[in-house]
């Protein structure tokens, strides 16, 4: 018997010994240690997928980056029957504590830091790539550059004054963070760079991207061309399209025209046909898509989706504007208000993206424009269109028109008219018989408009084309256009926003504040004036 007890005692001691050193080395199961990510091609690819996934967030291209420029401009307003989403933004009384604004800032910078890591690990990725995968390795890094350029450009549009706010771009932009941060010892508390500095970095990133992305525009995956990724990952043409759009904001007309021309000349994209535009727009990987953020069943943004915000079967709170909404129970109406609905002629196919109807809620508005550009609230599988082919004609048209005015060049004006009229014709059957004609100088003859009026009409054309796609506010801002916004569907006060008139209390509110937390936890961060 005694033996048995000794065995028990000894086995107890053995139990102690069996707990060797690696007993405490427990590995995470749904995460990868940061230092291991770029040691394999598979995880490097996954890191690039992660960039697009972060862009899917409802705080970025999933919803807010599309909604805020609309609801803060004259295109959209919020229903009186609401769950209080975008309350401050809709009344242009948004503050630095606005949760949507704060989430958007963080989301965008999360994309930035993830691109930084990929860019910084270029050598490591190339090192683990097989010879067959070298082109793909370069492309992965190229995508990171392109995306970083896109995010910084978005950050600038939302959080900083347009580049032309000062003649040399010396006003505040956003902080440039371009080094990877993996350990708490890497944490930075950066100041805001000037607008010019940020745009210089953006241009540099575009150039770096173009030097790495496959020149034929294809997207490689697992070593070979994968056509299903052509429109949902950044490629050479979408990067050129981005360059074209950025150049417009920089008033760099020549670059804009050249880049847009490259995309058009690629021959890989076509405009939607008039008859099927509604369906085509809502189709994944549509003909016009240069870059869209893809949503699959597993992404399922649900109630946080853009479609859910718009749909009367969902929250249904976002409404388009129409001139008749411009009535108020007290005070004078604002006659300078231009509703989105009225911007279209009856024959414009794009007006069908706004359905006149009733708010689906007891006591809701009746006969108001309901946005139906994004409508899928069953599977939510609607890709967010970030860059669309039509924009290339509008960019080239605008760039050439502005160059024409600056250099008094009639040939460029003609070229511009051909681009703008192409879009008008393909969207509106009536426009086919009434093309724009414009003259550079003098009194326009019958059927023609002045060059200035023509330039304004291009901005209106952009409003019609990109309604609810998150471009309106920025077109107004960069062109320093006065506009009137209304803050509800008719029975509350409307509000006038005058961008250039410094007397307006809303003057400084056509951009977003730096989130209050970012000012509080970073001594170098300077708030935008007026917040």
């Amino acid at each position, binding site marked *: 018997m005694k033996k048995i007890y000794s065995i028990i005692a000894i086995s107890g001691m053995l139990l102690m010994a069996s707990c060797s050193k690696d007993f405490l080395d427990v590995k995470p199961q749904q995460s990868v240690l940061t230092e291991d990510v770029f040691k394999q091609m598979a995880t490097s690819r996954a*890191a690039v*997928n992660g960039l697009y996934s972060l862009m899917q967030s409802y705080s970025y291209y999933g919803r807010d980056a599309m909604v805020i420029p609309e609801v803060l401009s004259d295109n959209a307003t919020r229903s009186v029957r609401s769950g209080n989403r975008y309350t401050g933004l809709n009344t242009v009384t948004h503050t630095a504590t606005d949760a949507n604004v704060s989430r958007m800032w963080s989301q965008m910078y*999360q994309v930035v830091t993830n691109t930084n890591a990929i860019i910084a690990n270029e050598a490591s990725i190339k090192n683990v790539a097989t010879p067959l995968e070298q082109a793909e390795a370069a492309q992965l890094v190229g995508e990171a550059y392109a995306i970083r350029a896109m995010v910084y450009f978005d950050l600038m549009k939302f959080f900083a004054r347009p580049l032309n706010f000062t003649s040399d771009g010396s006003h505040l932009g956003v902080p440039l963070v371009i080094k990877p941060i993996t350990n708490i010892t890497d944490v930075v508390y950066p100041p805001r760079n000037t607008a010019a500095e940020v745009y210089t970095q953006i241009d540099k990133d575009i150039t770096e991207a173009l030097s790495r992305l496959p020149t034929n525009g294809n997207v490689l995956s697992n070593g070979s061309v994968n056509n299903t990724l052509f429109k949902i990952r950044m490629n050479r043409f979408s990067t050129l399209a981005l360059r074209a759009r950025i150049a417009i904001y920089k008033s760099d007309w020549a670059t804009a025209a050249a880049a847009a021309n490259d995309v058009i000349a690629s021959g890989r994209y076509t405009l939607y046909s008039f008859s099927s535009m509604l369906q085509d727009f809502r189709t994944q990987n549509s003909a016009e898509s240069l870059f869209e953020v893809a949503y*699959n069943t597993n992404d399922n943004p*649900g109630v946080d989706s853009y479609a859910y915000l718009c749909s009367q079967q969902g929250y249904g709170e976002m409404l388009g504007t129409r001139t008749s909404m411009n009535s108020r*129970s007290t005070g004078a109406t604002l006659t300078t208000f231009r509703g989105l609905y009225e911007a279209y002629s009856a024959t414009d196919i794009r007006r069908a993206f706004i359905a006149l109807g009733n708010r689906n809620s007891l006591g809701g508005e009746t006969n108001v424009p309901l946005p139906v550009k994004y409508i899928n609230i069953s*599977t939510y599988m609607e890709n967010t269109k970030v860059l669309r082919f039509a924009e290339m004609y509008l960019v080239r048209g605008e760039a050439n028109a502005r160059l024409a005015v600056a250099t008094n060049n009639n040939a460029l004006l003609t070229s511009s008219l051909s681009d703008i009229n192409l879009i008008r014709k393909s969207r509106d059957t009536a426009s086919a018989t009434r093309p724009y004609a414009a003259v550079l100088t003098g009194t326009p003859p019958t059927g023609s408009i002045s060059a200035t009026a023509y330039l304004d009409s291009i901005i209106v054309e952009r409003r019609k084309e990109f309604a609810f796609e998150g471009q309106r506010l920025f077109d107004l801002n960069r062109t320093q256009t006065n506009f009137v916004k209304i803050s509800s569907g008719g029975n509350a006060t409307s509000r006038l926003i005058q961008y250039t008139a410094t007397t307006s209390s809303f003057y400084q509110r056509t951009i977003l504040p730096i989130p209050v937390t970012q000012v509080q936890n970073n001594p170098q961060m300077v708030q935008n004036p007026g917040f």
Partner: protein
Amino acid sequence: MKKNIHVLMAMFGLAICLLSNTIIAQSTNPASTSGNDFITITGKVVSIKDNQPLSNVSVKILKAKGGTISTEDGSFTIKVKKGDALLFSRVDLIAQNVSVFDPKMTIVKMQEAENNLSDVLVLAYSNQKRSSFTGAVSTVKNAVIESAPNASVQESIQGNIAGVQSTNASGQPGSVPNIRVRGIGSINAGSAPLYVIDGIPVVSGDISGMNSNTIAGLNANDVETMSILKDAAATSLYGSRAANGVVLITTKKGKSGKSKIHFTYQNGTNNNTIREEQKTLNTPQYLQYYREGWVNAGNPASSYDSLLNANSISRTTDTDWFDQVLRQGKYSQYNLNASGGNDKSTFFVSGSYYNSDAPTRGIDYDKATYRVNITSELTKRLSFKGGFSGSFQRTSNFLGGSFFANPIRAMYRLAPWLPVYKSDGQTYELGYNNGYNPVAVIETTKRNAKTYNISGNSALTYKILKGLTFEGSYAIDFNHAFSSIQYDPRVGNAIVAVGGTIENYTQDITNWVSTNIVRYKTEFGSNHKLEAFAGYEAQGRSDVDINIAVNGIAPGTSTAAGGSSPTLTTGTGTANRLVSKFLNTNYSFKDLYFISASIREDASSRFAKNFRKATFWSVGAGWNISNEKFYDIDWLNEVKLRGSIGYTGNQGIDNFESFGLYSAGSDYNLQSGLAQTQLANDNLTWEKNFPINVGIDFSMFKGRISGSFEVYTRTTSELLISQSIPSVNGVTNITVNSGAMKNAGVELTLSSVNILPRTRDGFKWVTDFNITTNRNTITEIDPAYVGNANYNRTVGNDFYTHFQRGYAGVNPANGEALWYRDATKSTTTNAFTTALPRLQYGSALPQFYGGLTNAFSYKHFKFSFQLYAFWGNTIYDDYGYLQKTDANLGFSDQSNGMSRYEYARRWTTPGQITDVPKPVFLGTQSSSGSFESSRFLYDGSYIRLRDVTLSYNLPSELLSKYKINNVRLYLRGQNLFTYVKDKRFNTDPEVSVDGTMAQRPPVFNTLLFGVDINF
């Protein structure tokens, strides 16, 4: 000194004096005398409770020298002078003077004291007598736990223990209560105590995602002891997990002798306590309120009717949403256990079923439990102890918080003119609240969670030599949760849009611990005792879960297979491990002086490699002053002074928080994706906790009053906090060790036998009282720590100091709301945006809390009641600014959730002084979007009649025929009455520890009938 006694005795009233004159036996004849007037008295000391003999009772002659001690059978013999009185005493009994004796046989009946130093305390890895223990431990009497109708044993702590704040935020039975031992000790690493059941540090908290509570799976009737370890001497053996105190629970074991069977049954109702004036407005009130708002907005009263028409407001519909959402709930409990054994082996077996349906529709809870405990002496040297238990809990609830689908939210916010049904009276009206008609939600949504626990433990003890034993034990605690959520495709816009949703979640947690201990016990000299044990322990826990959701539900199906499109399919796994060595020693000299020390080294997988190991320790000392020879205070029978100091830790962070991580799940286009989610911190380590405790245990007036008084501090440093960094770094927070907090407090526990019965059936009155004050102070905080902006977490403040814009009431001249412009509150403004951003207001932590229990018994009846007070705290209504909108949202469906109490106090006429502003239709002065202020801050003080029990024991003569030992019938009520200081409150004042009132199911009262039968 004597005078003092009399003065104090007088305070207990004449009745006590009469009864305490404890002459049991009559003495009519003079005793047989010897020459010098001495008589010899023989007698017996027995317990008043069951007439069992009491040994070791000291029998002392008062005012003279000499005495004896009662023998095994309780008998004693002593010579006394005629006229002398005898004092009978023993530490655990109430002492008695006897001055008249029966010459043949004097029988002295003695009563057990309520709370005393001879109690055996259940401590970390050992048991110890209270008299020799140097630390602070409180024990909940198992009588309190056993028959309470609470779903979890944790709820029995409230009001019964000093130094432990226990609150229930939710009226969902079986939900997780907030238990805080000696204040708030941590910011991000958790402040809940460690729970150890039969030696297993168990999984506590919610594992189903539906506010279920694993600890509630323990059958209260199985609990033998529940001790709460509070200071370093008590907790330091749990090292890195001890900082927030330890709740140590042991379950019942059988006793050798005749087998016993115990059966209990309880049945009752759960009832709401919401008063009429706390409800929101009815339609006539609502319409009147809006009429005033319409006029106040500058509109003619004559156009009000057309406004109602334009907004399709029904004047005839008057829905009482409280009636629609609330109900009378049911409660019942069955418990059966059997125990017994012989000299070698014992057993205990139990089974129970518990059911409690909350008075909120759709919130139901039930559980079933099973337990076997056995002990066996295998040989002279080897013994075995083991147990096995299983439990099953089922919880049904609905979405809480700010969800449209939360019926409680709807109840407080929906307008009364909204109908429940369409005009046909049957079809749900879904044209408001985003389609979430609360009645439809309650009746169609099925959300339930099942939580299972199986645990087993076994231990072998081997006596190696005299005084030296080895113990090896292994225990496993397996938890499984499965929750099933079915959202009906007809209700709720978001659900209708996707054709219904089914979600399934399942989690398995395997938790094991292996402990080896060597114990040594010796005495040397005649006065020295030494006990020591050393141990080695390894523990591991691994969790896996699976979460799936599908949309597009086929009619009639209830599982994920019935869905047409999966929207979520995920699963995760995580694990952590801990390896420890520990040593504990206790030395005592002559039962006078005590010294204890313990040390433990923990190594945890959670921390960065360089900082895995840490050593924790404590030192304690005790002095039993009343055992000293020089001690000579008559009325203060026992005094023991003790103190301890030590160091414990808190490792309560996520398992991989020190590593730099890229997380999976950032998928794109159905391909896997990784994104950076966490920065590495190579220096992350434990939170450090330094408790100091000084306590005094006493017993006075012959044991009639006993208690303890404790003064403590505990300082926590290197707090694990989530520090906010600029999000340009890609993450918004990093986990670092930074900051410090201090808790200091005083605890007093008293037990008093106010009226001592003369006989077993006599009238008895016992009072238990405890009170606690604790002051929490932040002593160092990282400026980059960003917590909840509703609290002002700066140095010198406590952790839950409320911080809001200052609401200055209503301008009597025009009824507008006013806010303070400056910190001195000297100027006000009617424009919210120009108010001073935030002002400090009170704290969610109470100034004091305590319980007072009085128990009376007479013959077969027993009556007891407990009052619980929670005083001097503030509560913030998170949703107040959304509910009380002063008509500024117009006729939106949830525009106004003010209570009738506030309605009656609204501003209506110039000059009126009130704090409820006038309504202004579509006003801009206060808007629901961002107008949070101290207007929604309440005084949280309350006193509650927490428990009332009236019981009757059937006469034993009646029962003996049926071989029944005892039958007890009782009526019991919980939360029957609550005094709330702040009348503006419109829900129950018992809220979560952070002082937020947040649209949770209200805490309710329970009324029940019960029967206990012992065979």
